[in-house]
């Protein structure tokens, strides 16, 4: 009897092992996909930006093609800027030509808001219209900007523009307005959808891959790995602003 019972009793250890292994394997198989899914879809609309993330860019000056303006064009198209270059026109990103006064080496790089950790524009703004989001993106609240331009004076990178005249045909995702200050938003509307910035996408599309966008706080991100591997610099590092945009090759 006892022998029969012994035979009839299922082998629990084996079944348990198989069940748990299957779950484990399924988890291993799905987890990366889920993580990618999360990354691809950004954060939910009702979810606040998190300071666990710090968005930034690493720009390789050696790969940036002199004469190529694709990042600037992409920024203008994405954000509804006119692309004009009069002193009163807004320019959120510009190509700067550099010539080393000692060696004579010539190069160029894109320059935009550096999304500082300690942004002077945020410090000086009387109404807190200039603010830094938890994920490190420096923005202007168009509803409370009074147009005093103190932030333009304070920015060490000449990265801010003042809207000098009425604007038409604005992009719904990129609010702008006459009499207020604006600058690179790091394509916040794209980032929130899990996309990269327009300038980085255009640079990749052109085959230069000079702009690498990503999460500086994530040790596994490509940008973090590269910043650890190569010598990168912050522009005007002497000011101690800890910029979110870094450069290599200058």
């Amino acid at each position: 009897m006892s022998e029969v019972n012994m035979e009839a009793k299922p082998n629990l250890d084996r079944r348990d092992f198989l069940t748990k292994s299957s779950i484990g394997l399924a988890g291993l198989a799905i987890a990366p996909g889920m993580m990618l899914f999360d990354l691809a879809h950004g954060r939910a609309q009702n979810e606040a930006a998190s300071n666990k993330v710090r968005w930034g860019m690493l720009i390789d000056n050696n790969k940036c093609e002199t004469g190529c303006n694709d990042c600037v064009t992409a920024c203008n198209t994405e954000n509804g800027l006119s692309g004009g270059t009069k002193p009163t026109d807004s320019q959120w990103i510009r190509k700067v030509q550099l010539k080393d006064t000692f060696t004579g080496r010539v190069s160029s790089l894109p320059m935009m808001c550096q999304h500082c950790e300690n942004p002077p524009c945020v410090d000086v703004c009387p109404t807190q219209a200039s603010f830094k989001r938890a994920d490190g993106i420096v923005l202007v609240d168009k509803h409370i900007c009074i147009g005093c331009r103190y932030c333009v004076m304070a920015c060490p990178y000449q990265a801010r523009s003042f809207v000098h005249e009425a604007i038409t045909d604005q992009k719904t995702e990129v609010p702008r307005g006459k009499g207020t200050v604006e600058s690179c938003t790091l394509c916040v509307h794209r980032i929130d959808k899990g996309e990269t910035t327009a300038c980085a996408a255009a640079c990749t599309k052109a085959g230069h891959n000079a702009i690498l966008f990503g999460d500086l706080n994530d040790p596994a991100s490509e940008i973090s790995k590269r910043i650890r591997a190569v010598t990168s610099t912050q522009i005007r590092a002497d000011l101690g602003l800890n910029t979110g945009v870094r450069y290599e090759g200058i």
Partner: protein
Amino acid sequence: MSSTSFSRNESRYFYALLGLGVLVVFLGYLGMHMMEEHGHIVSGMNNKIVWGLPHVFAIFMIVAASGVLNIGSIGTVFGQTPYKTRTPLAAIIAIGLLAGGLAVLMLDLGRPDRIIVAATYFNPTSVFAWNIFLYSGFFGLAVVYLWTSMEKRMYGWSKPTGLAMFAWRVILTSGTGLIFAFLAARQAYASALLPPMFIVLSFAWGMAVFLLVQAAMYAWNCKIVDEDMLRRMKNLLCLFVISSLYLVAAYHMTNLYFAKQTAFEMFILRDGGIYPILFWGGYVVIGSLLPLALVYMPGLGGTKSVVTASALVVVGSFTFLYVFIIGGQAFPLSIFPGYEVSSSFGDGAIGSYVPSLPEAQLGLGGLAIAYLITLIGSRVFKAMPHDTAVAATNKHD
């Protein structure tokens, strides 16, 4: 015209002056309306020179407002009796200048309609936000100061109010200097010397404005300023002009000593076109040396010389501020030290700025507000200083 006919028509002349002021305020309104309607595109300002002529007018008025109250402080805080009778007039001019300066600053905003936002959203790290408190406090204290210096029952409160006013305006003028001193990345401004420099400049500019208003009032009332009083006031003006020159020199000398600042100083003092001309010709020669000569040259130093000297100090203050504010922005930011740079956004290039008519209208409109408040205030409060005045005969002949 005889003094009798002037007295008979005095009221008419007053209304004519009032009308002139209202007209200029209206022109200022038109300038503001133009900028509000079309945006700052109608101004000479751009993304490189973001603060222009309106800021020159506004900062002159705000700094001079603080300085003009020095006259009151000398009387009430430092006990110099002859200055006490001048406190009400000083307080009225100060209120007028601050009102005019703030009007220009506010109406030059990109969104002047949002001024209420500035009062309801406060950023404790912004010196601009501090200044909103400092300016409103200044107004309040100046009104109380006026009251305590005019109402006999309140005379006892005059000294403590004067002391508070003195401290407040030192902080306020420091705040104006700090607006620039906190701009860490700009070669022209990041200097701890700016707050004390602005305080001393305010003494000189305030004294010059007061002497001009005082001269106009004495002439209007057919009186001349007591000789001893005039001597004291002109000496004080010169002392402030010399002190200002000293601090301005110290500011430029320290900059010259720092190798990274030398290029900026060469631009402002030698190579920058209009800016060195305005600095040396406008501020140093016309606004400082000439006034000193007018006061101290043998044979000069009379009422006319002092009035001319004061007017020249005011002219010099405008040229100084033009160089400081606009020249300071025109010089390119040092973003890539050691590199020659160029871009579509003016990197490495000298910024260009041509003031436009609406900007000038707005600035002059602010001055006209200060003028109107002084004109009406001094008449309503009978703020004519009374010391050992001597009636001038045939003044208007």
